[in-house]
Each structure stands twice: as C-alpha cells, then as structure tokens.
C-alpha cells in the first residue's frame, strides 16, 4: 500500500504531524515525534527516487479525480532529487535541533516551534511533489508563512525586522506568481502543468503569455533571492535561530530554483525562452550577482552574514546553468542545487554549534575558538573547501560541470567569472578560518570555559560533512539522476 501512495505520504506525513505536535506539551515529545517523522519521510523519498531514477514517472491523483481536472502529483527524476535533498536535510537537522533549540528558544514555545518547522517541511515537500501550478502556490505560502514565523523567533531583536522584511518581499513575490498563474489560467483554462505545456505552444506569440511569464519569473526570483532581489536574505539568515538558518539555507532557495526549472522547461518549454531575452538576462544578473555578493561576503563581520552573502552568490551559479539552457548547464544547476544544500547545511550547522557555546556568531567573538572546538572547526574547514570547489569535495563536481557548460557555449567571460567567484570564496572562507584558528581569543567571552560542542550537534554536522566528501567522489546519484531528469526537461536535445 505504501508503494502506491508513496508520493502522497511524503507530503501528508509532516502535514499530519504538525497539528499533533502543536497540542503536545512542551518538552522532548514534540522533538522526538518530529525527528521520527522526518526520518520516515526521508526513507519514503529514497524509495521514490529509486522508483523514478530509471526514467519512470509517478502520477498520483488526489481525491481520485483524473488530471487535468483534479490535482495531480507528478514525480520524475527532478522532483525526486529535490524531495530527497529537502527530506534528507530535514532528517539531519531534526536530531541537531534538540540541543540548539533548547538553548536558543524559550521553553514555552517548543511545541509550536516544531509544529511550524513541520509545516515548513510540508510546504517545501509539497512544492516538489505537486504537478498543479495553483497547488504549488498554496504549498509555497505554507512554507513561506511558517518560515517567517520561525525566523522571527531569533534571539536578537533584529530577527523581528528581518522577518518583517522577508514577509513583505516574500508576499510580493508570491502575489506576482499568483498574477502570472491567473493570466495563464485565463488564457488556457487549465492549471495542470502537463496540460499547460500542451496548450501553451499555440499561444506563444500572445502578449498575455509573455506577461504571465514575466510575473512568474520575477515572483520566483524574489523567493530564491536572485541578485538584485536578494535584500531580504542576509538579514533573515543572520538573525534566525541557528537551526532555522541551517534548514532554510539548505532547502528554501533550492526548492525555488527547482520551481524555476520546472516552470521554464516543463511548463513553458525551452522553445518559448529562446525567443525572449530571459536567458541573457539571467546570465547578466548571475554574473553581476556572483561577483558582487562574493565581494560583499569578504567584508562581513558576522559569520552567519558572511555565509548568507555567499548563498546569494551560489544562487547565481545555479541560475547560470538555467541561463545556458544546455544539457550540461542544467546538469550543473541540479547538481549544484544538491551539493550546495549539503555544504551550506554543514557550514551553518557548524556555525550553530559555535553559537551554542559562545552565544554569538560575530567574528570578533569567535576569534581563536578553533583550538577549543577542533571538531567543529574541522567541519567548517571541509565545508569551506567544498564551498570553494576544491577537488575531492562535492563543490568541485558542480563547479566542474558549470565550467564545462560555459566552455561548451564558448562564454569565456563566464568561465573567468566562475573562477573569480571561486577565488573570492577562497578569501572569505580563509577569513573565517583565520579568525577561528589564527587570531587570539577574545577575553570578553572567557575562552577557557569554551568546550567542544556536544555530540548531538557534532554528529549531524559531520554526517553532512561526510556527504560533502562522498558526493565529491561518487557522482552516480547526483549527476546520474540529474542527467535522467534533464532528458525529460529538455526533450528535444537528446
């Protein structure tokens, strides 16, 4: 029975858990249940990927209504890969959450915190599973609303303003998306993505379709923090609780990139994009974004903020692949989406372990602590190497494909930009390492009292660190699945 309802259970399990967790008394019960559920969802996502990795497509009809009338969950290799990384990150973050949340969030809010976390997971997984574009909007808002609430729980008061800023920007983005969907519906009379893909080609010349496309693109560019619409991201990630930062940075923007892929290639089709300046526009924005944001990252005085700016730059790398519009480019996008989730997850979790001991993420407070917390420090080093793209780490694989894609298209300038971006990454990662290891301790935080982070924080962090190294050598899962997915996204090319 589980086999036939696989794709549905991935969404419904966390959805059912959220209200149950919300009425549980505070304590460890909410955490325990959430953790168990996140593990089972991860197992289901693995089974789902195994089902579709051979090129199968799973179609699930909600309520037994056949598509295009009913809502359809449609899973191919691209969805399954994104669902796997989202649920995988959740499965690693929940065990980590116990200690970190106990430290950073007041006791009386614990059960509601886990409920909101579960809802956020529901929304993100729902976005990956659904094949209905309005359903996607609903899931998008479920995940966004719960993440606004989660961010506002940060310890510093700036968390409130950061969350407010994100709420305004995020709602504008979502409403833009809604306008686009409305115009598409007015033109085609359908909301099912496959059905839209069939009906759109004859309307390609129509102005309304172009408007709809523009609205959807801008809406999601806001959600995925594409330069120059990234202004909400650094604040939100800096002031959110450590767990939330680690989770959102590894999943929320990735899911938005996936939606971009889906809308551009599955719904509108690549032949539509070729006649619009979309790809050139993406390339320009990404190039400027990568350079500028990496540059900004170098000058930050807060470790979380430094990594946030780096995240915006990395989003640029992912969107570059879409801008290329080639098989290699899209492979790079999907692979980098997967790998970046691993590296940023590991890095933010390691920073979270520092925050657990020190109570601050500012570089001046962290200086010299690498010697007191060697394992945490080692995790940051390996995560940082992956972020730079050193061979032997996951980051290298995605950069490699990206450079290959750029060479194939003979965009030499972009090759230079990618390398320059990596160079800047070397600088800002070195800044982090230098502060942690080579600077003398800050006396105001009493460094002699700082011990290594507890195992509950270290083990999940190191799981992701190992994943970074593992996927640097074994690319069968990432690249193999990505290539399978691209056969469906770009049917004409192969």
């Amino acid at each position: 029975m589980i086999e036939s309802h696989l794709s549905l259970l991935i969404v419904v399990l966390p959805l059912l858990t959220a209200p149950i967790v919300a009425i549980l008394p505070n304590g460890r019960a909410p955490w325990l249940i959430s953790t168990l559920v996140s593990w089972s969802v991860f197992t289901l996502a693995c089974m789902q990927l195994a089902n579709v990795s051979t090129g199968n497509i799973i179609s699930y009809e909600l309520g037994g209504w056949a598509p295009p009338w009913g809502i359809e969950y449609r899973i191919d290799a691209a969805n399954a890969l994104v669902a796997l990384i989202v649920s995988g990150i959740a499965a690693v973050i929940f065990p980590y959450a116990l200690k970190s949340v106990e430290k950073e969030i007041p006791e009386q809010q614990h059960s509601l915190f886990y409920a909101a976390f579960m809802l956020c997971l529901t929304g993100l997984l729902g976005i990956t599973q659904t094949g209905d574009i309005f359903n996607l909007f609903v899931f998008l808002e479920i995940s966004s609303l719960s993440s606004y609430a989660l961010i506002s729980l940060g310890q510093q008061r700036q968390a409130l303003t950061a969350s407010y800023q994100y709420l305004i920007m995020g709602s504008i983005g979502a409403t833009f998306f809604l306008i686009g969907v409305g115009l598409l519906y007015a033109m085609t009379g359908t909301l099912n993505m496959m059905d839209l893909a069939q009906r759109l080609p004859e309307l390609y010349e129509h102005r309304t379709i172009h408007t709809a496309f523009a609205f959807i693109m801008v809406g999601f560019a806001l959600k995925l923090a594409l330069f120059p619409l990234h202004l909400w991201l650094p604040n939100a990630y800096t002031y959110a609780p450590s767990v939330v930062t680690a989770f959102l940075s590894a999943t929320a923007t990735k899911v938005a990139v996936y939606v971009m892929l889906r809308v551009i290639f599955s719904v509108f089709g690549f032949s539509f994009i070729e006649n619009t300046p979309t790809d050139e526009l993406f390339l320009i924005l990404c190039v400027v974004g990568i350079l500028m944001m990496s540059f900004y990252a170098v000058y930050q005085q807060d470790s979380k903020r430094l990594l946030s700016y780096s995240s915006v730059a990395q989003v640029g790398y992912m969107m570059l692949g879409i801008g290329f519009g080639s098989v290699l480019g899209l492979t790079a996008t999907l692979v980098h989406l997967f790998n970046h989730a691993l590296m940023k997850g590991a890095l933010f979790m390691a920073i979270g372990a520092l925050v657990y001991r020190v109570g601050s993420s500012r570089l001046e407070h962290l200086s010299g602590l690498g010697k007191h917390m060697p394992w945490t420090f080692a995790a940051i080093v390996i995560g940082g190497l992956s972020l730079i793209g050193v061979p032997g780490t996951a980051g290298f694989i995605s950069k490699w494909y990206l450079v290959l894609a750029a060479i194939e298209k003979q965009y030499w300038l972009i090759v230079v930009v990618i390398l320059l971006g990596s160079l800047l990454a070397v600088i800002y990662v070195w800044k982090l390492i230098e502060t942690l290891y080579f600077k003398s301790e800050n006396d105001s935080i009493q460094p002699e009292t700082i011990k290594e982070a507890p195992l509950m924080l270290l083990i999940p962090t190191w799981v992701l660190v190992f994943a970074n190294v593992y996927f640097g050598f074994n690319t069968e899962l990432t690249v193999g699945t990505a290539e399978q997915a691209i056969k469906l996204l770009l049917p004409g090319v192969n």
Partner: protein
Amino acid sequence: MKHNLILRVVSKFLIPLIFLFALYVQFHGDFGPGGGFQAGIIFSTGIILYALVFGVASAKKVIPPYILRALASLGVLIYAATGVASLLLGGNYLEYGVLASTQVAGQHLGILVIELGVGITVMAVMLIIFFAFAERGRSEEECE
C-alpha cells in the same frame, strides 16, 4: 462596554442567532452557498461580539486559549484523517467515494466531514488571532 444595557440585551439576543446561522451555513454547504470557511468566521464573530461587550477576560472563560489551540489542531487533523481514512478504505487520498456504500453518499459524507474540520480550524484560528491582538499591551483590569 458591559455597563451599557441596550448593548448587553441586544447582543445576548443576537449571539445565539449568529451561532445558529453559522451552523446553517456549515451544514448546508453542500447544497447551497456556504461551507466551513464562512461558517467558521461567522461562528467566531459571535464570540468576538461577546468579548467586545462583556470583555476579553469573560470571553476567555467561555472558551479558554488552550482549548482554542487544541481545536485549531483538531480541525486540521479531521481534514487530514479523512484523507487517510479514504486511503485505508482503498481509495486515493481524499477520495470521498469510498467512504460510504455508494459513490454519491460517500461524496456527501466526505465533504461534510472535511468542511467540519475546516470550520473548526477557521473558528479557532480567528479567535486566537483576535485574542492575541485584543489583550496585547493592556493591563488585566482593562481587559475586564
């Protein structure tokens, strides 16, 4: 406002009517305009009216916050559990047809239960929002 005689009498007369209308909208939803969203809102306005006239504190005695939180969760659970029930009975998620002996009866039953869940959650959530804003930044006596 509870010293105002007219308001007290009129609202005591109105509140039961509001509740009754909410229940009508709730359960007539599958034959005419209506449903859980509207009914939940109407039901909550009854209690909000009570809170306005008799004070937030006495409204909270009628329906305490912890019950509201439980109700909000309960509604979502009813919704999700109906879907799971149809899964267990051999249909797809939220396929109401399998819930009863015939397709049509199943559809009726399914939508009624689902809308009940929606109604309960909407009612509870509206009241939670109202209470959260109404008592913020005031001392206890002012709430009375």
